[in-house]
């Protein structure tokens, strides 16, 4: 087995593509307050990290 395994996932086809507008996201934060990502960004660049879990 070669590590790391190449699953052949084509990430250009997974999630919003480069050049597309990132969709509107409204979700509660760690304080339970709803956050509108683009509104809070307020014209600034942003980094959006998707991670597996903060619980395990």
């Amino acid at each position, binding site marked *: 087995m070669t590590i790391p395994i190449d*699953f052949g996932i084509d990430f250009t086809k997974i*999630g919003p*593509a480069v050049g597309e507008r990132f*969709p509107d996201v409204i979700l509660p*934060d760690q304080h339970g307050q709803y*956050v509108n990502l683009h509104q809070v960004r307020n014209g600034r*660049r942003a*980094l959006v*990290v*998707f991670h597996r879990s903060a619980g395990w």
Partner: protein
Amino acid sequence: MPFAISYDAVDVLTTFATKHNITYTLLSDEGSKVIRALGLFNENVFEHHAAYGIPKRDQCWGVPYPGVFLLDEQGYVLQKRFQQSYHERETGVVVLERGFGLTSSVRGTPVHAQAQGIQVAARLDSPTYRSFQRLWLTVDMHIDAGLHVYGQPIPEGFIPLTVEVTPGEGLIVGTPECAQSPHYAPSPTGPSGGWRSYPWDFFIAPPLLRWPDA
């Protein structure tokens, strides 16, 4: 500004943020609705775990493919950074430097070397290493005016430039990137009608990954 999205409930994020002193925004996508709507839901998570010999755990259903999106001022996607292995993580330094073209204040300390006509500085993204981190080893090179760097194919009789990494236990060296330094700006003026070469800055950067059991 950073946002981190996971399928965890708010109280899980509260505990995590408190424990690790996280002040940036963690977002709770409980039920993975946004993860699914954006097409990031990993339907193959059990197969991916099985391939690494990890037993099936129901709680893993709902996770996204881990990775990052870099957005510009208007909210358009500038870059996506994902890895085939869900274990692997890049550093914040690489996101700032290769993603946004900034210079990070926490990059590794460079080591310098030079020979006639060439100066070399090599550094890692970070001075420390965490398991499964993908660190880039950036080798910056400055070549004096009058010397040339050719691309492929290499003219006959020339010696290709190589970067060799000494093997280490569990160390995996990935495919290097090579490019002109983003800090390089060619002079707009010069004598016309003749060949002229400018000082040239470029880098070669192979990614390094340490896999504990490899």
